[in-house]
């Protein structure tokens, strides 16, 4: 790739920052991203935010359920009875 170090734009940096959370970037790209992040507060903030979202999701997954009550949700009664019946049949 003939992209000079200083030529990376925020659009490419955002993509590489995201990719760096999935794999180790080649040295050249890693340096270019690091240089950009030192100069660009928005991208640096974006990168930090992505790590925060990851941490939040791993620490508290149940808060990301479909609705506010998800962390305290209970298996609905109808499903409970259905599953008990299925297990009972499985016994026989």
């Amino acid at each position, binding site marked *: 790739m003939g992209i000079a170090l200083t030529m990376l734009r925020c659009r490419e940096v955002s993509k590489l920052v995201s990719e760096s959370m999935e794999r180790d970037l080649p040295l050249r790209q890693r340096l270019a991203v690091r240089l950009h992040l030192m100069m660009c507060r928005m991208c640096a903030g974006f990168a930090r935010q992505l790590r925060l979202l990851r941490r939040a*999701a791993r620490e*508290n*997954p149940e808060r990301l359920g*479909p609705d506010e009550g998800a962390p305290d949700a209970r*298996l609905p009664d109808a499903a409970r009875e259905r599953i008990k019946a299925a297990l009972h049949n499985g016994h026989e």
Partner: protein
Amino acid sequence: MPDHTSQPESTLNPADWVDRHGDTLYRFALARLRDAEAAEEVVQETFVAALGARDQYSGKGSEGAWLLGICKRKVVDLVRRRNRPDTGTGGDLGPDPSEAMFDAKGNWRLDPRILKGRPEDALERKEFWQAFRGCLGRLSQRQADAFTLRELEDLKSDEICKELGISASNLWVLLHRARLRLTACMKSHLEKWGLL
């Protein structure tokens, strides 16, 4: 007969499973699948599979931990089923938010930072979670599922590729789009609520 020293440390009580572990497994599945019906299905599959495999329970971990391990696999199975290529969403990487978020030169149109002060403080705020949850729900199914397997479940990239039937570069695109869309969506929510 096994001698006394090889007795399992814990035993299984399938008759109590649904009452003792049903809610925990349901909450686990619900957070990851974001769909009550799918979560119920996974809970049922977990118990049925566990009943069939109860001879393989070593007695080392608790009954609950053993069931949760099975449930994790069932969640991934369901995600794979609902993203099968023949469901119509296969291969679809979802909308690309790049045009809306970057100008022609590749600079941010809007400051992507959604959190002021120490971002870590956001975790204490109810509004942060409200925005995160709501915006996750607005991603395409595939984007949300890729994000969930990667970020909530911490599966390795190659496992996710296998489950979703996509290449590594497609997974990176999916995740990047998911992250950009979450950023834009959360920003507009938090702005609307006057928190920025």
